[in-house]
């Protein structure tokens, strides 16, 4: 009986997701400009004010910005039609990889272990790789779990 209920539920889930795909109505999130990236940071991390320049990924699916008057590095990663936002502190970045225009930050973050941003030019990627260096290193023990809402 339980197997039947679980099987039927799994089938119903599959059908609902297929219906969701067929119906559409969502669009992948994209940051159209630096102001939108700054607004995403301000919405995602209360009190975070992005300092110029804001580095926007060429496809608009991510951004980086230093905090104005603060020590944090703001990161926006678009996920589906929404975005995950982080205010990184020293120790939050596990490693940094740069390949031409592509910058990958590997994070000490269980639900956002990596963020890959493709910039319009290699110079921007290099600049932000250097900026991110300040946030790399041993995991800060005082970081951690999601907080409420």
């Amino acid at each position, binding site marked *: 009986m*339980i197997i039947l*209920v*679980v099987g039927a*539920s*799994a089938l*119903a*889930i599959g059908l*609902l*997701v297929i*219906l*969701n*795909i067929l*119906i*559409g*109505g*969502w669009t992948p999130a994209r940051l159209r400009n*630096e*102001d939108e990236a*700054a*607004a995403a940071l*301000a*919405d*995602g*991390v*209360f*009190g975070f*004010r*992005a*300092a*110029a*320049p*804001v580095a926007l990924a060429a496809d608009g699916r991510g951004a980086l*910005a*230093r905090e*104005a*008057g603060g020590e944090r590095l703001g990161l926006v*990663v678009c*996920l*589906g*039609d*929404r*975005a*995950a*936002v*982080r205010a990184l502190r020293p120790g939050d970045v596990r490693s940094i990889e740069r390949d031409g225009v592509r910058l990958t930050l590997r994070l000490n*973050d*269980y*639900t*956002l*272990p990596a*963020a890959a941003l493709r910039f319009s030019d290699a110079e921007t990627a290099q600049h932000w790789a250097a900026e991110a260096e300040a946030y790399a290193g041993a995991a800060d*023990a*005082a*970081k*951690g*779990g*999601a*907080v*409420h*809402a």
Partner: protein
Amino acid sequence: MPELPDPILIAIPGFIMLIVAEMIYGRMTGRARFEPRDTAASLVMGLGNTISGVVLGGVAAAWFVFIEQFAVFDIGWALWAFALCFVLDDFVYYWAHRFAHTVRWWWADHVIHHSSQHYNLSTALRQPWLSPLTLKFIFFGSWLVVIGFPPAMVAFVGALNLVYQFWIHTEAVPKMWGPIEAVMNTPSHHRVHHATNPRYLDRNYAGVFIIWDRMFGTFEPEREDEPCRYGIVRNLGTYNPIKICLHEWVGIIKDVRSARSLREVIGYWLGPPGWSPDGSRDSSKILKERWRRQREAEAGGGDEADRPVAAE
């Protein structure tokens, strides 16, 4: 003892039909938004919750059978008892829910329900998998049984409470008629509960009746000038159900391992979500205080805070 049906099992077909209806209505009007991976994650969490209820639910059932012998009264199965049990269960739900937001051990379980940045009927089914292991049922589930309500009746009205709460997880229903909004938990009230705007944080814990929030000072109305932003303060970067299920537990373990004193262990484990020894993290209390100060500064002529400013 009467044969009581399982209201949740009976309601599942209705849940599915309403989700389909909301998807179609949302597509036609733009008043509800679904994203397939988010929808899939929420529904898989719901299925996992059902399975874990079968696997782990016996722990809670055994506890209730055990404590039934200590019942003060023998209330029995009269209709008035069902009605009274339903209201009292909702009162207990309010407090259980409030503690689920203010004690990290229980928040680690409940955060799953809040972890979607969408707010639609599939979000209602995004439920935790490990609830019985938090032992919340001992602290909050025991009261009605000890008073004398039969455990099966308590379980029945608790299930009715959850079925009621399904339909309020939607943006498709605007504010309702005043008297309904005054007494009942509605989509509008519950949108506030799921919002991360500092004004809305830790508000509207009600299950069925919003009167508990009004009585205990946790009520906040939805405002047209402040649309709800859904999710959690630190939104997830994944749709992986295992990570959704475990992420806050992983956070607790990491923090407790890094603790330098018993006080820190207890703070990380049982303190409010976001607690840290030096107050450097964003707990709800800290966020609300910063928001209050920002509002005061803005009222005194402060500037907008969401535009990039020139680097020094």
